[in-house]
């Protein structure tokens, strides 16, 4: 009897498992197929264009060539754009991290009222269109005396010459910090909130001043949030279009704008596809690379403290 009950159970499990898999697939497949058909496949086709040849008439076909990549790497103009893109992304992530700490500290440790207000004010701009925010920065940084920055400098009495920030890479950096700040503050405040408060108290009781306790206890323990934030901000800045297009001018030309020019002005699809490939590689490298570095660092850290 026992064995028959077992057999029965097994048969039921088998019967149950198969429809379960079928139902699961039916619920999952629509989303999966949608993303594969409309994102993965088109992206692969686009990236594939980067090694094809475009004829005078605009037809894109074989033979295979690395010509577009060669131009991208060996032409001084294009190389400058690649380097500037990486520099703007790096500067933006560093400055964003710097600005994010105080806000994230208040969200994680501040009085409930301040914590809530800071959270709302930091996150709110995230749902304001990037076009609107960039327009705001155009008004802020305008090179004429009627820009907010120049008006303020004038009011402070720094002299009649307006500073020229708009249409340089710095305008892009400043506005990008503004656009991506919430995406740094959110993981950072979550990370800070998970730190055991008694660690910081212990450091203070043992005589460490507040800044030292921050540098030696809070900062290292918040690294996971920082790494997550830097990854997001770096890859989004490197892939951005609106901000450099509206604020960077020709001096702050970045890959996204160059890509758009290749399509709409030069009609050079293989070149645009090569730029797209470089942008995807940068985004992937940021997402995979930063995580890998952080893991290695954490591993080295554990081994070091283990050796002590």
């Amino acid at each position: 009897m026992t064995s028959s009950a077992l057999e029965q159970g097994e048969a039921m499990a088998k019967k149950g498992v198969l429809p379960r898999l079928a139902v699961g697939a039916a619920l999952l497949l629509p989303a999966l197929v949608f993303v594969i058909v409309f994102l993965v496949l088109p992206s692969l086709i686009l990236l594939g264009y980067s090694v094809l040849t475009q004829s005078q008439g605009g037809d894109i076909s074989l033979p295979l060539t690395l010509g577009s990549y060669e131009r991208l790497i060996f032409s001084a103009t294009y190389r400058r754009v690649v380097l500037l893109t990486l520099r703007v992304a790096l500067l933006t992530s560093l400055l964003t991290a710097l600005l994010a700490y105080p806000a994230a500290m208040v969200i994680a440790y501040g009085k409930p009222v301040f914590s809530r207000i800071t959270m709302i004010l930091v996150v709110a701009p995230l749902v304001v269109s990037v076009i609107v925010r960039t327009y705001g920065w155009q008004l802020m940084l305008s090179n004429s005396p009627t820009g907010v920055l120049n008006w303020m400098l004038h009011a402070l009495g720094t002299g009649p010459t307006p500073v020229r920030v708009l249409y340089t890479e710095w305008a892009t950096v400043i506005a990008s910090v503004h656009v991506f700040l919430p995406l740094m503050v959110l993981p950072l405040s979550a990370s800070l909130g998970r730190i055991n408060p008694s660690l910081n108290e212990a450091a203070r009781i043992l005589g460490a001043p507040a800044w030292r306790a921050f540098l030696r206890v809070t900062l290292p323990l918040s690294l996971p949030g920082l790494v997550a934030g830097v990854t997001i901000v770096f890859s989004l800045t490197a892939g951005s279009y609106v901000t450099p297009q509206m604020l960077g001018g020709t001096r702050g030309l970045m890959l996204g704008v160059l890509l758009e020019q290749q399509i709409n002005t030069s009609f050079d699809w293989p070149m645009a596809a090569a730029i797209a490939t470089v942008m995807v590689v940068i985004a992937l490298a940021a997402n995979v690379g930063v995580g890998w570095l952080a893991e290695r660092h954490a591993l080295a850290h554990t081994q070091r403290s283990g050796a002590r």
Partner: protein
Amino acid sequence: MAARLSGGGGFVTYLLAAAVLIFVLAPLVVVVAVSFSTTPLATFPPVGFTTSWYEGVLASDDFQSAFIVSVTLALSATVASFVLGVPAAYVLNRWNLPGSRAIETLLLSPFILPILITGLALLQFMALMKVRDAALGLFIGHVLVTLPYLVRTVTASLKQVDRSLEEAALTLGAPPWKVFTKVTVPQIVPGIAAGCLFCFMVSFDEFPLSFWLSNAETMPLPIFLQNSMTKIFDPSIAAISSLMILTAAVAVIGLEKLVGLRRAMSV
């Protein structure tokens, strides 16, 4: 949790955070201020007070049609993301199917790929398929961009569901679908609602994808705004921008009321 910012260090932190908040709000405040200015050009400081820019914008046919396109697009993208995303997120998180991790990464991949490239790839794909319908392209593109937000919010909500309640219901003999509708769903409804609201805003604000896929007949609001910027330099641009800021403010209050911003942002 007791407040842990105290003493001189705490004061400095509050001060720095206040400075950061000023930096965050300044460009938005300037836009709203300029939108009421009587000057013929959008310049700072604003002069006088008028609502005529708003009256002009709201009466314009182009603005109205862009607004309708944006709302329709955002609503349909949200509904489609809901239909595709909720079952997928549920299966990925509750049923241990083989390859769940890889599939989840794939569903979230629009987060990693630059949106400018997602849009261009889709534009080219539509051309290859000989589809010339801008509205259809925009719809597909916006679903691609909003779907990962919904999957992520639903995942975060599912992780907060009390599993022992589900198990208790199962043990007491409830069939799985009943456990889902009577036990799981009531616990994740606020999270899903917040996810939908967020999807709506992401679509409503979206630029780099619509940039490729829209045309003169089907033009969402952010594209209309950017187009106007290259032709018009008076404060009506600031007025349109302020209306979009107002929409965002309403959405943020909605998110905060629904689940609290912290949870809506899945942290």
